[in-house]
Every structure is written in structure tokens, then in C-alpha cells.
């Protein structure tokens, strides 16, 4: 046992704790691996620390995960790029563990290191590593191998490239579905590095095999590859090779596959170009919008606007709009909800006349939907449709919908609608707002649920910002201040909350003349909670009002509070007093 000089003591312990029984200590040591490496020096890091870590792959996952991450940035500590290859063995063994997150982190690090390595080193050490993993006995190694082919392939000799391509094709036909899935999901990445001559000849063959796999889960991932591969191919090849696959997939027996197509179709359209989109993909998309499975319709409905943007208005009206009409009365609320969240975006695409003729009835029926989410989704995108048809047409149906949502049984629904009130106010204009929504805003301040009251106070502030202090002075302040005599202390507290939020917007004058007297009065409340909130509120008012007001009114009020029998009231009053002294001191 060696004894260590005292200055080295902490680092010595850090090293020892790489093998401590306590996982937390091991984890800490691994997290500071760079410190250990610097203490050992580059040469001993290469010769001792890295081999030591390679032996360590049976540790707990948390430790392995940290190790995989640290090794990714370890090149400087082993002596720079020329020694980068020494980092491969420990990462290789991490690529074979069965815990997915560790493997993925190790792959990340391998890619980072591989992309920096010199070409000769890549050929000498990185490519053999890929081959070893691809031939691994356990599936975990082969799964990992799929994720680093793209790094190895660049800068290889032609012979090696041929070998790598054939190895990848073997992985695409592996016995284990896990390996085929990894090969399918990494095919696009690998394809970006492969020369275009081999793209058609070899990569597309692998792709074709994967799209015909027996396992649903493999075919699913092959769909994802469609868009990525399509972008690499020449347009005519894409039409010849990818398009039939997409059309096939859109009629696959498995709803999961069709779901993936629905999610990806927009990207696929970009890959095949506008002509084929019109002739082949529109029918496919229409089928998906009318799919038996609600999940597929949800995915398709959510893309309806994006898809229409690719088409001209006539096509959209002719083909897509009839489906949209059907979907607006779909039996699944989730389908309607997905549709409601995007349908507003169709208005600018179709133009005013078509919108009024075709879309407005759909908007209105969705606004009356029995399911609150659907109505909320429509209201949240109101600004988009307003630009096209104007609010007058909508307002008749809008108001009942808003009122109903404002009184919904579920507080989350109420919360959501409150958050849209400023948007509505700006769209509807002052006049409409005064008549219909003003009373609702006050009603929310007395909601049974705290989150709603809080949001209501915040809403007042945003309205004051939207319509200006003078309007607020007339339409908000009197109503709020009336509440200060409410018998329920929680409601009185809301007045204070609203004041604290509105004061910065309303400015010094109104704060002094309207708010401050009410606050001072509230400081004599019988409930301590009110009183210490007064103290906190006064503290927040200090920067808003003049120094003279602070000295005259606020300080006196706080001094009174600081002598309160309640300890919390005294505490917050003293805090506020200190902050007055602080600002005064800073100014003087």
C-alpha cells in the first residue's frame, strides 16, 4: 500500500473509488475521469486507465452509461487524434451490453471518435471493430454494428467498402428481428455515405427485402426509411423504386404500418415530387383519411393542412375536402380533435370564398362538438381563420362555445380557455369583448380552483396590456377592487394578486391613487395570510411608485405590520423594509 502526499490525496481517493462498493461513489469517479486521466498523464492513461476501463464492462448500467459518455470526449486525454484508436476497445465492449441506452451512448461516442480519426486509423482499427460487432455472437453487438457503418464506410478502400456493404446486407437478413429492425432504421443513414451507383444496385435491394419482412415491426421502420432514401435518389428512380412501396404500404394489412405512412406521407410527397403526388399519393392519402382504424385517421387528419399546402386549391377541394367533412363528424373524438387542431390552417390555402362555402360549416360544427378538446383546438387557432373570413361570421357561434367552455366542469378546460382570452380579445375587438367576455373574466377570479384564479389574475394583466391602462381603469379596476370586501379571505387575496400583476402595467399614478389605498386598508385585515401578502405586495410596488410615496405611505404601513403579533407577517414586513433601505442606499 502506497502512501500518498497530502496534495494528491483527493485524486488518489478518486481513483480508488473507481472500484468502491457504493455505486454513487463509482459514478462520481467516472464522471471525473478526465481529472484522473490528467493526473496519470497521457501515456499511463493509454496503457493503464483505458485497459482498466475495458475490463469494467460488468458494472451497473448507470456507471456504464457515464463511462460511455465520458469516453466520447476523451481524445485529448490519451494524446490526441493519433492515439484515438486506444479508446475503441472499451467502447466496443460497451456496444455489446444488453441495456439499450448504454449501447446508444457508446455508439454516439464511437461516431464522435470515428469521425475525427485519421483515415489510416479508421481502416486499421475502426473498420475491424465494425466487422467484429457485425459478426457478434449475441444480438446486442449486431444491433450496435448497424449504427456505425456510416462512419466506417467513409474513407475506406474500395475492397473494404464492398465488404461492408455485403456485411450490412447480411444484417438486414439476420435471424433476430431486433437486428433487422436496427438495420432498417439505420439504412437511411448508411445510404447517405454510399456512392450512387451502389445505391440503386445494393441499398435498394436491402430496402426491398426489409419492406417485405414478415415482422410488422421491421416493415414499420422500413417506412421511415422511404423518405430518407427517396431524397437521396434521382427523381425518376424515386418514382420507380420508392413510390410503389409507399402505395403498397398505404394499403398494408397492419394498421401500424399505415399509421407510419400517414405520419410520413408529407415527407414522402416531397421526395417523389408534385406530379406523382397528384396522381398516386392523393388517392393513397384519401384512403388513409378513410381508414378503418381511428389511430390511422388521427395521424392522417393531423397532416391535412400540410398536405393541402402541397396541392392546388382545386385538388384540395375536390379530393381532400369531402374527407375532411366526414372526419368532422367522425365517431372518434380524437380524430375530430386532431382535425380541429389543424383545419384552421386550411383557410388561407383555400381562400375566402371556398372557406366560407366549405370550411365554415365544418368550423361551426366542430365548435359545437360535445368534446371540449375539439372546441378548444378550434378556438386556439382562431387568428388564422379570422384573417380570411373576418370575425363577424364566426362570432355568433363562437360566443356560446366560449361561454360553455368557460364554465366547463373540468378545471383544465377552463384554464385552457382563459389562456386564449387575450388572443380572442385581440381578434374580436374591444366592443365585443366588453359585452360578452368581461363578466366571465371576473367570474374566474372567484373560481374554486386556485390555478384558475391565478390564471384569471394573469389574464387581467394581459388584457390591460392589450387594451391599455385607460380601458382597464374603466372595465377592470373597479370590478377587481370591489372584491376586496368579499367575506372569503381567499378572494380578498386574489385582489392583492391581481394588483401586484396589474400595477406595473397601469403605471405609478393609478397605482398610487387606486391600488395603494386598498392595499393599506387590507393591511388591517384580520387574517394574517392577507397581511403578509400585503407586505410582499408592498415590496413589489416599491420600484413602481415615487420615493415620496414609499416614504410616506408604504414605509408606515410596513412598520405597523412589522409589529404584528404573527411571526410570518413580521418576517415579510421586515423583508420589505430592508428592501426599501436597500434601494435608498443604492440611490444615495
Amino acid at each position: 500500500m502506497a502512501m500518498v502526499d497530502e496534495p494528491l490525496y483527493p485524486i488518489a481517493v478518486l481513483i480508488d473509488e473507481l472500484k468502491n462498493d457504493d455505486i454513487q461513489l463509482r459514478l462520481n469517479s467516472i464522471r471525473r475521469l478526465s481529472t484522473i486521466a490528467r493526473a496519470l498523464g497521457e501515456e499511463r492513461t493509454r496503457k493503464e486507465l483505458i485497459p482498466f476501463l475495458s475490463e469494467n464492462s460488468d458494472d451497473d448500467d448507470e456507471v456504464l452509461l457515464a463511462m460511455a459518455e465520458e469516453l466520447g470526449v476523451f481524445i485529448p486525454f490519451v494524446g490526441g487524434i493519433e492515439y484515438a484508436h486506444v479508446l475503441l476497445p472499451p467502447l466496443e465492449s460497451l456496444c455489446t451490453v444488453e441495456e439499450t441506452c448504454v449501447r446508444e451512448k457508446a455508439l454516439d461516442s464511437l461516431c464522435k471518435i470515428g469521425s475525427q480519426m485519421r483515415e489510416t486509423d479508421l481502416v486499421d482499427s475502426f473498420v475491424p471493430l465494425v466487422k467484429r460487432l457485425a459478426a457478434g455472437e449475441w444480438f446486442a453487438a449486431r444491433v450496435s454494428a448497424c449504427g456505425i457503418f456510416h462512419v466506417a464506410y467513409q474513407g475506406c478502400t474500395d475492397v473494404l467498402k464492398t465488404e461492408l456493404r455485403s456485411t450490412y446486407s447480411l444484417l438486414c437478413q439476420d435471424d433476430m428481428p431486433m437486428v433487422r429492425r436496427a438495420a432498417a432504421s439505420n439504412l437511411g443513414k448508411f445510404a447517405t455515405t454510399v456512392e450512387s451507383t451502389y445505391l440503386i444496385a445494393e441499398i435498394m435491394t436491402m430496402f426491398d427485402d426489409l419492406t417485405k419482412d414478415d415482422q410488422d415491426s421491421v416493415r414499420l421502420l422500413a417506412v421511415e426509411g422511404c423518405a430518407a432514401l427517396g431524397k437521396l435518389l434521382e427523381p425518376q428512380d424515386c418514382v420507380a423504386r420508392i413510390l410503389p412501396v409507399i402505395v403498397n404500404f398505404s394499403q398494408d394489412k397492419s394498421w401500424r404500418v399505415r399509421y407510419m405512412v400517414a405520419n410520413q406521407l408529407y415527407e414522402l410527397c416531397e421526395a417523389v415530387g408534385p406530379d406523382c403526388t397528384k396522381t398516386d399519393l392523393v388517392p393513397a392519402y384519401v384512403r388513409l383519411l378513410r381508414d378503418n382504424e381511428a389511430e390511422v385517421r388521427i395521424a392522417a387528419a393531423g397532416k391535412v393542412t400540410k398536405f393541402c399546402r402541397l396541392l392546388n386549391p382545386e385538388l384540395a377541394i375536390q379530393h381532400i375536402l369531402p374527407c375532411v367533412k366526414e372526419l368532422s363528424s367522425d365517431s372518434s373524438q380524437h380524430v375530430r380533435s386532431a382535425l380541429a387542431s389543424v383545419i384552421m390552417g386550411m383557410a388561407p390555402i383555400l381562400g375566402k370564398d371556398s372557406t366560407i362555402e366549405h370550411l365554415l360549416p365544418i368550423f361551426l360544427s366542430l365548435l359545437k362538438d360535445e368534446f371540449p378538446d375539439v372546441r378548444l383546438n378550434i378556438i386556439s387557432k382562431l387568428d388564422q381563420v379570422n384573417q380570411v373570413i373576418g370575425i363577424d361570421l364566426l362570432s355568433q357561434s363562437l360566443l356560446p362555445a366560449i361561454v360553455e367552455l368557460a364554465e366547463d366542469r373540468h378545471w383544465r378546460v377552463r384554464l385552457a380557455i382563459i389562456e386564449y382570452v387575450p388572443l380572442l380579445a385581440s381578434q374580436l375587438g374591444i366592443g365585443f369583448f366588453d359585452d360578452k367576455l368581461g363578466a366571465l373574466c371576473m367570474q374566474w377570479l372567484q373560481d374554486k380552483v386556485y390555478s384558475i384564479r391565478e390564471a384569471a389574475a394573469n389574464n387581467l394583466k394581459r388584457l390591460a396590456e392589450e387594451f391599455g391602462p385607460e380601458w382597464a381603469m374603466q372595465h377592470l379596476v373597479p370590478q377587481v377592487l370591489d372584491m376586496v370586501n368579499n367575506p372569503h379571505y381567499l378572494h380578498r387575496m386574489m385582489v392583492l394578486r391581481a394588483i401586484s400583476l396589474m400595477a406595473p402595467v397601469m403605471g405609478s399614478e393609478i397605482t398610487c391613487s387606486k391600488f395603494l389605498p386598498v392595499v393599506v386598508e387590507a393591511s388591517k385585515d384580520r387574517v394574517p395570510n392577507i397581511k403578509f401578502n400585503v407586505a410582499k405586495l408592498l415590496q413589489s410596488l416599491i420600484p413602481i411608485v415615487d420615493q415620496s410615496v414609499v416614504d410616506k405611505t408604504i414605509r408606515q404601513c410596513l412598520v405597523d405590520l412589522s409589529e404584528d403579533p404573527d411571526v410570518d407577517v413580521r418576517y415579510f414586513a421586515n423583508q420589505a423594509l430592508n428592501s426599501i433601505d436597500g434601494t435608498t442606499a443604492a440611490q444615495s
Partner: protein
Amino acid sequence: MNGGDVTSSSAATSGPPPSLDWRFSQVFGERTAGEEVQEVDIISAIEFDKSGDHLATGDRGGRVVLFERTDTRDHGGSRRDLEQTDYAVRHPEFRYKTEFQSHEPEFDYLKSLEIEEKINKIRWCQPANGALFLLSTNDKTIKYWKVQEKKIKKISEMNIDPSKAESSSSPPQLVANGLPADKAHGYLSNDFSFPPGGIPSLRLPVVTSQETNLVARCRRVYAHAHDYHINSISNSSDGETFISADDLRVNLWNLEISNQSFNIVDVKPTNMEDLTEVITSAEFHPIHCNMLAYSSSKGSIRLIDMRQSALCDSHTKLFEEPEAPGSRSFFTEIIASISDIKFSKDGRYILSRDYMTLKLWDINMDSGPVASYQVHEHLRPRLCDLYENDSIFDKFECCLSGDGLRVATGSYSNLFRVFGASQGSTEAATLEASKNPMRRQIQTPARPSRSIGSMTRVVRRGSESPGTEANGNAYDFTTKLLHMAWHPTENSIACAAANSLYMYYA
């Protein structure tokens, strides 16, 4: 041994394979005379892994015990040599490998329910890196276990002598990571400069011992997804998902994600008073990851295709046997309830067990079973007694041989029955889970019959069998053989008689 006759008779070409001659192989946890069985030791699940090299059992005490095969890979010499020298010893033999506590008794405070630790099912998952993986479940919670050999590490060559570090006064007050409490980060911050060549006096710890031991670690816990008791778990052929089924629902999980599952079958009626049928067992198709089957208390098996929709309330195929006219009685529905289903290895057939029979279904034929095997027909006159003592609700498991040529299931008095399932086979053996399995064997050959009740098979009781009474009450309803498994590649059966695991081969 008469191993020779097996080879000679199998040379006879067409026709059903000859009846097997079952022999005792091993017993684990054999009861000595007069020993009382502890409730917690009773085996409640048995499962071979895919290769047949490992066997797992679960018990009512929440433990999982693993066994490993000793006879195949350990032998030196080629296979052929072994076959020539001694045919008879080449049957699977297992030894105890390890055990671990999988589940503990719990209490659900919200529902005021005790949750037993009893292991309901075990399923093996894909092995990786020499480690074994399995799923085990009790009534509510599924757990994913990794069993792996770990090196016992013995560390030497520390920088700091542990004994000195603790006793000596300098340096004092160590906190985690060896930082002195007062100047915790000062030493190791980046401004501490290390000499370019490193500090030679520092050394890495050296791990010396190469001893290993088996460690079971729980990797994931899949909880809070079942309102009712879980009766089955089954992994998909895709290697990443599995299902769990309770009385009313089947959920689909990803092995890597323990905090969410998807409900794929829900038979719960909106009004629980309308409930007429519950799910009793569910299993994935062995090859097609989109197909699964579940059985019900009304005696039907539904095959569903997960490609069709997200919530598979409508089945693709329904396998049900039409009720024989005039045979209806109070017990009809109770005894129709299916206690277990298993797919054959190729996925073509489904074997089901109800109280009275074993039935084999071809998944391409939903009009009726291709074969029925009477297991408890002789108990029909006594259904009333069985109802009174609750035995009628016993859930017997069933299993198929790896080659699909035979089926087996358990019965009372620690008996189990093996039937030939191939066309024209008349094989029907009754064996006892004891060291002498054949002492109860019946000689009467039996034909698989399509109609229940046409054949009544009576177990011929040998005079040596204990407990035989004049009125024929030979059956002991307290000793029931509920759990059994067939080796995936060889004719070897593992079955549980209370706390003992008996293994037989042929």
C-alpha cells in the same frame, strides 16, 4: 436398458409414432415420508427456455428457482460417440443453478387488498451476453430479471490504505469522493495543474479475484396496469414486446418501457352486472408477432390479429365447440372454462385444457377441435362433490411436445396424462409424479375422439396404489398436478407435485 427398441420401431415407416416409454429422471425437493409441505414452497409455475438448456420454477413464496442442463454441452467427445456408447443416458438432466426472491407480499392501501407474492407465470426472454433474462409475474406486477455471472471483485493496490485512512487523524473528515470536507472542490478544480507526464505515485486499483457468482437483478418493473389478477404473460416473436392478461383485459408492453402499456383487448362490459365471460389465458403466436390467442371462461378461444385495429375487441377467429344437445347441466359452463392454452411450436395448432378434456385446434379450422382427449371423464358423476370442495375451479395447465406429436396435462392424485396427437395415434399414458411413474399406467389404448362422452376412460387402479377404497375413491383431490412443461426439443417433461419438481424422459 431397452433403449434399443425405440430405434428399431421408429424405423418402421408410416403410421403414428410408437408410444413412449416414460422413465423417471430426476426429482428436486422430494418430500420425505411424513414431511409437511409448506404453503410457500408449493410450485406455481414451470417454464423451459427456448433452447431447453434452462428450466425455471416459481413458487407461492415469490421465489424463482433456475435449473440448468448438465448432460449436453459438458460432455467431451462427439455426439455420435455418445449415442453409440450409451443411448440411455442421453436424456436431459438438470442441476440447480440459482434462485432469487422475485416478488414480496404487498398491500394495496388504496384498495385495501393484500397482493400475494405467488408467482403466476414465468416466461423466458432472449438471452444476451451470456446472461439469462426472464419475466415473472404475480397477480399485479410483472418483473424483468437478468441472471448473470458476476466476478466477485477483490481490490488490491489501493492508493490509500483503507485501514489508515479511517484511523489516522491526517487527513481528517473524509466525505464522499475523498474530498476533505473543508476544501471540497479546491484540490480538483481545473486550476490544479498536473505535471505533463502525470503523477507516477498514483496507481489504479487492481482487481484480483476471478471467482464468479450468479446474481439476479431486477431490471424493470411493469406495475399498475392491471385492475384484476394477471393470469398470463407471453412474449412476442419480435423480441421487444410482450402481453399480460388479466380477467378482463390484455395489455401490450415494450420490454424496455415499464411506465406505459397499451390495452389491446378489453372485455369489460360497461355494467359489471352484464359480465358473463372472463379471460383465462393468453398467448402470442410463436412466429407471427401480430397474432395472439386468448381463452375464456365460456370455453372459447379467440385469435386476434393486431394488424386490424389498435383495440382488438373483435376477434379474427373464434374457436368454440358447439354444445352437445341435451347435455346441459348446472356444471356445463363451469367445466367448459378453459384453464390454459398453448400454441404448438410451428403456430399451426392451439392446445386448450378445460376441466374435463384437452382439445387440439387447428387454427385454420374454427368449426371444432381436430381432437379431444378425455382427461377427467371418470369424474363426471362426481361433479357435485368437486363443486362443493371447489376442486372444479382448479386450473390445470397443458403442454405440447416440441415436435407437436404429443400433448400432456395434469390431474389429481399427482397424476398426469400424455396423449399421442398425431393422426391415428392411440397413445394414452397415465403417469404418477413419483419415482415410479408407470405404476398407474393404463394399458387400454385410446383413440382421440371428436365427441365428448363417447369414450369413458377409467383409470385402472393397481392393487399397490395406496388410498384405494372399496367405493373407488382413489382420487385425492388435495394432491393435484397443475403445472407442467414439455422440453422444447426432447421428450422430457417437468411437472410439479406440490413442492417437488419431477422430471421424466422417454
